[in-house]
């Protein structure tokens, strides 16, 4: 298993080299979006409106951070469970989204979209919100502020630690449960 240091926006070549189990340290800007923000993004697309950030080469992080205490850019910021965004993800990938960050399983439609549009699904450690927060150097709300923790934030990250769960070649890291 290899280790990569990648900077956003990601290219096809960045994504194509990744295999399940590879460790990826991401630096640059990533965008937070979870349930309610995804609904609004897709509604904006349906209405023919432009999105609050450029999807080309972007990485979306499924997270609703806790409030930033004084002196910190953000509170705890670990991943939420990804399957709830499955119904939105393929459309975003078709428009250039290069990857998502979360925890837990994706459905077949998302896995197919990763292959078709050369994108990757990255896992962050669930419940390690205080730890992951240390790798976020800046956070600003760029859309849907009324959604509170679900607002879209542009995060600046430095060596944000991730694992490749689903690659763009159909590979997956999660083990199948042994039911005997």
């Amino acid at each position, binding site marked *: 298993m290899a280790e990569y240091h990648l900077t956003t926006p990601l290219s096809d070549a960045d994504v194509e080299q990744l295999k399940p189990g590879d460790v990826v340290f991401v630096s640059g800007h990533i965008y937070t979006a979870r349930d309610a923000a995804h609904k609004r993004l897709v509604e904006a697309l349906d209405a023919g409106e432009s999105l609050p950030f450029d999807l080309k080469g972007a990485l979306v992080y499924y997270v609703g951070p806790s409030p930033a205490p004084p002196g910190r850019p953000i509170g705890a910021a670990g991943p939420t469970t990804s399957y709830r965004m499955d119904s939105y993800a393929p459309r975003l990938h078709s428009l250039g989204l290069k990857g998502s960050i979360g925890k837990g399983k994706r459905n077949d439609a998302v896995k197919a979209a990763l292959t078709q549009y050369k994108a990757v699904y990255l896992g962050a450690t669930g419940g390690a*919100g205080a730890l992951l927060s240390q790798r976020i150097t800046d956070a600003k709300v760029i859309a849907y502020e009324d959604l509170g923790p679900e607002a879209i934030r542009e995060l600046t990250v430095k060596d944000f630690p991730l694992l490749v769960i689903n690659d763009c070649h159909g590979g997956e890291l999660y083990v199948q449960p042994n039911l005997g």
Partner: protein
Amino acid sequence: MKMIPASDISQAVAAMCITANRELPADVQAAFERCHAAEDSPAAKEIFRQLLENAALARETGLPLCQDCGLGVFFVEVGEDVKIEGGSLRQAINDGMVKGYKDGYLRKSTCDPFSRKNVGDNSPAVIHFDIVPGDTLKICMMAKGGGSENMSRVTMLAPAQGWEGIKEFVVHRVAEAGPNPCPPTIIGVGIGGNFELAAINSKKALMRTLDDRHPDPAIAKLEDELLEAINQLGIGPMGLGGKTTSLAVKIKVAPCHLASLPLAVNVQCHSARHKEVVF
């Protein structure tokens, strides 16, 4: 009659909400250390290393362990000889929770189920009251995250399905949940009662410490049997494979209707954030 000021209750609840979210329980910390040593797979070991570092950082920085600071769930045992002064008990607990989530920079996660608009202060607290003899007030608080709660289920088995049916349902539930609820999980199982009591009991069971043995040896044995079957699934920490899919199984049993075998599985994430205070 013991008089307890509502303001004392609010203050204690606020403090409990903050510490529950910042401090990994000692039994969980010990379990992480034990599992870190026991796992062979480097990926599984690495998860436990990160979770231990996360706990140390939360303690040091005052950040919550997890950004999902949960719904505030309370089990309250109210002694019949307790009187609350200067306010209602429900209000005192809710006010304390709201204050704790505000002052502790904890995430507010309640929303309208249709509009999905955030309520803004994490209210209302989910409170279950039991009236008990005596003059003691005991308040147990759990910060319950959505990811693990979403993997929980209630089912009404037929009595003929018996223990084998229970075991199959619980193990399959954990298998299907896979990496989603932040394994290694703790599994609360409510057996018997009725539809709602099984669910409440499955959550109450999660208030026990990991090393607490069930007082009934027969039930303790069933907990061991379920835990062994779950850990044979090999899902491992965060679904990356390994020996530890769950840290513990806790069962709470109640008599049920002749026609029924109610069963609830409440999945708890690895950090098992809960606290209690006694007046």
